[in-house]
């Protein structure tokens, strides 16, 4: 019993020490569930390239990430929505100056069960379904089956994005609030009556679900969210930038990591994870936010690494 106690006490001491040291050089990234896998992959590759850097990526939802940035609990907030005016105000009150960087483009994908005969919807129909005005699949040309709504919890940026940009109204109270993209995809595998929304990176890898084609209005063409050209030109109607927020112009590891994310190599990883690389206008936007003059798309590798690479080539 005594030995157990001593072990416990030692563990606690080390844990708290670890925390003290960790907060100094460990970069904390927090927020959107949609971005988490992608950013995690980016950070893993980056850490392998730059030994000695430590980056921790956690989820919790865009709202949680931004709240974390405001309360100075994280260095970078992942957010699948833009920061709200009220959040900027709160941040300024606490001396935090949120700066936005766009790291990827997402085509929000509407998914149904693989057993559902429906394969396309208009934006208006999606809005009506989530507002609870269309309640049965037969009303949109499907079988006679009540629609089960799957969505995200209110701390999710995707929850807000749907509301503000697709539904233009409030969610039906019958919405099942799921914890993340993966949980929605998992639920729809089993539920033939369900409809859900996930980031395109999750739609690509989900088995047993069907990704719907979406048209901006009746009479317009239907597009699926997988074709880069359809997404970049906005022919696929539900696209959005995936953002990271930092406090003021970033410095040190935070800045290096963001530059890496925006480099060609970083953007290639973004595409590997199922999302889309950012178009040129966002690159310019990012340059301004980061306080970097000129393009930063060249490789962020240190000169030494470059020399080594050149030597090897």
């Amino acid at each position: 019993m005594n030995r157990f106690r001593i072990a416990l006490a030692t563990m606690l001491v080390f844990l708290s020490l670890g925390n003290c040291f960790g907060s100094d050089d460990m970069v904390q990234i927090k927020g959107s569930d949609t971005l988490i896998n992608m950013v995690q992959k980016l950070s893993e590759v980056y850490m392998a390239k730059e030994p000695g850097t430590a980056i921790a990526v956690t989820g919790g939802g865009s709202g949680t990430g931004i709240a974390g940035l405001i309360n100075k609990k994280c260095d970078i907030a992942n957010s699948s929505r833009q920061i709200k005016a009220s959040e900027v105000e709160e941040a300024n009150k606490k001396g935090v100056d949120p700066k936005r960087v766009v790291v990827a483009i997402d085509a929000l994908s509407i998914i149904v069960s693989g057993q559902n005969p429906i394969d396309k919807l208009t934006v208006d129909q999606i809005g009506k379904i989530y507002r609870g005005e269309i309640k049965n699949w037969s009303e949109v040309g499907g079988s006679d089956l009540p629609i089960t709504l799957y969505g995200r919890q209110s701390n999710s940026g995707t929850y807000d994005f749907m509301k503000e940009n697709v539904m233009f109204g409030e969610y039906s109270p019958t919405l099942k609030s799921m914890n993340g993209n993966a949980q929605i995809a998992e639920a729809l595998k089993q539920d033939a009556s369900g409809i859900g929304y996930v980031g395109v990176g999750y739609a690509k890898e989900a088995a047993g679900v069907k990704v719907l084609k979406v048209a901006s209005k009746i009479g317009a063409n239907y597009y699926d969210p997988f074709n880069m050209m359809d997404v970049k030109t906005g022919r696929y109607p539900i696209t959005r930038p995936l953002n990271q927020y930092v406090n003021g112009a970033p410095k040190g590891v935070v800045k290096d990591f963001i530059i890496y994310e925006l480099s060609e190599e970083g953007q290639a990883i973004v595409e590997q994870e199922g999302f889309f690389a950012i178009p040129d206008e966002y690159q310019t936007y990012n340059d301004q936010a980061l306080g970097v003059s000129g393009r930063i798309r060249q490789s962020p590798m240190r000169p030494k690494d470059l020399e080594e690479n050149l030597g090897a080539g």
Partner: protein
Amino acid sequence: MAKHNDFKEKLIHGLFFLNGLLVVFVLIGIFVLLVTKALPAFRQIRLTEFLFSAKWNPTATFVAPSYGILSMLVSTLMVSIGALIIAVPLGIGTAAYLSDVADKRVREIAKPIVEILAGIPSVVIGFLGIVLVGPFIAKIFRLPNGLNALNGSILLAVMALPTIISLSEDALNSVPKSFQEASLALGATHWQTLMRVKIPAAVSGIIAASMLGMGRAIGETMTVLMATGCAIAMPKSFLQSVQTMTATIAIEMGEVPYNTTHYYALFGIGLVLFIITFIVNMISDIIFHKYQKVLK
């Protein structure tokens, strides 16, 4: 020497008194915190709307935000009463088996196992709800999914069982031996003795045990968050998704801006939960003491 003992005695007495006092202070502290954090909510929300409206949408942007907790209150009561309906008969049965039927060796193995059940983390039980109980319910009732109040009830029943079994067994064991002997001497069978003498004699202990189990079910968060589907609409049956009060606090506390009506309203929900569990525990305590007096 006597003096020294006296001092030691007093010291220990004082120490235990302080320990007891600490618990009281913590309880009062929590209550005061909840009340002071919850009260500002009612500058914006009418108490009648808070308690009797089933519309909860504090983050509404297209319509005015609404702060009614009735559907969550009903959900919490449904899920925990459902859990009791499942757990109480099972719990009493197991307790009766352990105290009266099982031989000593079986009891020595079965009792610790029941207690281990209490130690399973709620997130694990919630996971079982998603992958095991949910699909099973969906299949039996031919539903598209099994994330509903029934799922939550079944899982909470599992979590309340150890409490109910342990305390009911204690209650059955503390029925005086003479009751049982008298019954058997009058020619009653073991079954008759158990059903008509022992269980009635222990009934207040069993009720107290069930109430404590219910207290645990009401406060449980992770399991119901994972397994009940979390839809805020007023539930019409056990086969619909529900969102309990605990789940609402857990979901929304993480991102709510501090010191807003929404923030205070979440503390309001916490206060309602506190009051409910307090009443449930108090009733169980009163019943328990009454029964001890009767048997003496």
